[in-house]
């Protein structure tokens, strides 16, 4: 694909995106507006993540792409192929070997290390959106640190259901300042967000980038008497036996049969071959 620049985007666009990323890293959890471009895949397919990845990628990178934790889901395959074609970078399925990991809706089970970058695809970057539809209002609320509405919502959940009825895209507070949407990862993954790697979040359609530098304090919202809990299916993986990984439920027949398997396919495969410690 010599007709296109390295990693598809032109260098001016990459600079614009990098400026937004740097601003995001300087103000963790703050949603930085950026001039998102049309990408050759549809909005909703990860255009924000793809633009962030394209902007940070260098020829020496080794890229891993996961969707729902797996490397072989169709959209992960498609995005990986896109960068193979447009950037010619090496790719891998091994979490530990990747320098850049683009993800949709999961954080890998194996802890990431310094030097790695995790790029999230974000559909709705605004954690307050479902409480307040107006962008003008929500930006004002962030500016004034006016998060009362969110706490009322969590409280109403408890009053109605006896628990906070949010299981994914569970809101977090970053460094005691901005309330942030962690993208639709299961809340099981929330505690992993305090990590050694850089985390970048790209929302293409909504034109926002935000970021977490390594070791940033990320606290899932809760109440003293109703503490946050990172939940998962109460089973072990049927393939590798892991009891501490996030599980997908797989329907095996039409008589109610089902099994639970690791959502992180690389983690699961690594445990079965003995490469990842049990």
């Amino acid at each position: 694909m010599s007709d296109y620049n390295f990693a598809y985007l032109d260098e001016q666009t990459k600079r614009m995106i990098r400026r937004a990323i740097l601003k995001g890293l300087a103000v963790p959890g703050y949603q930085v507006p950026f001039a998102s471009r049309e990408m050759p895949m549809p909005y909703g397919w990860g255009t924000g993540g793809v633009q962030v990845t394209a902007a940070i990628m260098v020829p020496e990178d080794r890229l891993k792409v996961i969707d729902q934790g797996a490397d072989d889901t169709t959209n992960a395959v498609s995005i990986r192929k896109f960068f193979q074609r447009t950037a010619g970078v090496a790719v891998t399925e091994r979490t530990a070997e990747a320098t850049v990991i683009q993800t949709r809706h999961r954080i890998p089970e194996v802890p990431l290390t310094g030097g790695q970058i995790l790029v999230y695809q974000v559909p709705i970057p605004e954690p307050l959106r479902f409480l307040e539809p107006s962008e003008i209002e929500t930006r004002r609320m962030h500016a004034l640190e006016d998060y009362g509405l969110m706490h009322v919502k969590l409280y109403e959940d408890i009053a109605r259901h006896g628990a906070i009825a949010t299981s994914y895209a569970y809101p977090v507070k970053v460094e005691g300042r901005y309330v942030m949407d962690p993208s639709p990862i299961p809340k099981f993954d929330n505690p992993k967000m305090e990590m050694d790697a850089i985390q970048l979040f790209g929302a293409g359609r909504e034109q926002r980038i935000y970021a977490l530098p390594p070791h940033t304090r990320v606290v899932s919202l809760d109440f003293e008497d109703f503490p946050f809990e990172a939940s998962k299916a109460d089973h072990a993986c049927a393939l590798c036996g892991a009891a501490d990984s996030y599980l997908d439920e797989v329907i095996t027949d039409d008589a109610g049969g089902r099994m639970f398997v690791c959502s992180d396919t690389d983690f699961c495969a690594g445990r079965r071959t003995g490469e990842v410690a049990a």
Partner: protein
Amino acid sequence: MYVAVKGGERAIDAAHAWLAEERRGDTAVAELSVPQIREQLALAVNRVMAEGSLYDPDLAALAIKQSRGDLIEAVFLMRAYRTTLPRFGASEPVDTGAMACDRRISATFKDLPGGQVLGPTFDYTHRLLDFALMAEGEAPITAEGVPAGGPVPHVTAFLNREGLIEEAMESDVVPPDLTREPMELPASRALRLQALTRGDEGFVLGLAYSTQRGYGRTHAFVGELRIGAVEVEMEIPELGFAIPIGTVRLTECETVNQFKGSRTEPPQFTRGYGLVFGQSERKAISMSLIDRALRWKELGEDDAGVPAQDEEFVLMHADNVQATGFLEHIKLPHYVDFQSELELIRKLRREAMGDSSQDAHPTQEAAE
């Protein structure tokens, strides 16, 4: 079973191959050429150029061919190509007053300088299927008239002479470019018009229609609708003056709307404006109605709480490439989110059904 989520790569390749075959259709039927689409499906080409924000009839025709006639998909192809092009600069404002009009009508004056020119319109055709088109007939030949010549001044300028219509303020402010900077709200009128001109025709039409039916009425008259070619000029820094770099066909609509006024200020008509690439008059009229509806604050009108007055609602939902992408993305896998919902609903149901073995409070799970 578990293997079901494997094999994504092979499945994609096979799907693409099948798609290519479906796109071509029955090979016993002659293939459609890009020039055929450009010449004979010109209104589709116009729509794709307008919503794709890229004036190139050949590329728009190619996009329509590649997308099997799915115009939103074609718009998307155009946008994804456009986004890779560098932006060298901006043209001078085009002078639509100097347009070589193929069509120019006014609904407010029976006759006017420059005349009423119907041009190639469906307006007064009878919508009867023309079965003769199914056979391959001779090319129709139309007798060529003599152009009236002379200037075709804007209708609103007549009204303006009497002070009957609000002044369109001149401004040297460089308008923001929505394809290069993020949309900022509240938006300037220039930015709103930019978003509307590339907005989805159906969405823009529906909203404009809603204002006619009472959801933010603005009592619009089509002061003027004109379609034709205008010259695009650009100032070249090395030269220091503007030179023509090409022509584009545009549709321009100016509406004359109900007046405002007060005891001290005489009433004046107000304006709505639409400008769209190609022959796209449904879109241009719709755009001018919405433009006018969105100006309620500036004109001191009441907030009727209707969709067409809500700038954020209109601008954030008018783009069909954004809309279709997000809408259709829900067919992508959501196993993980759904799994967490499954866990939650089972747990809530257990608690609601008063399973005494469970605490009333959420419990810490082993996983944490």
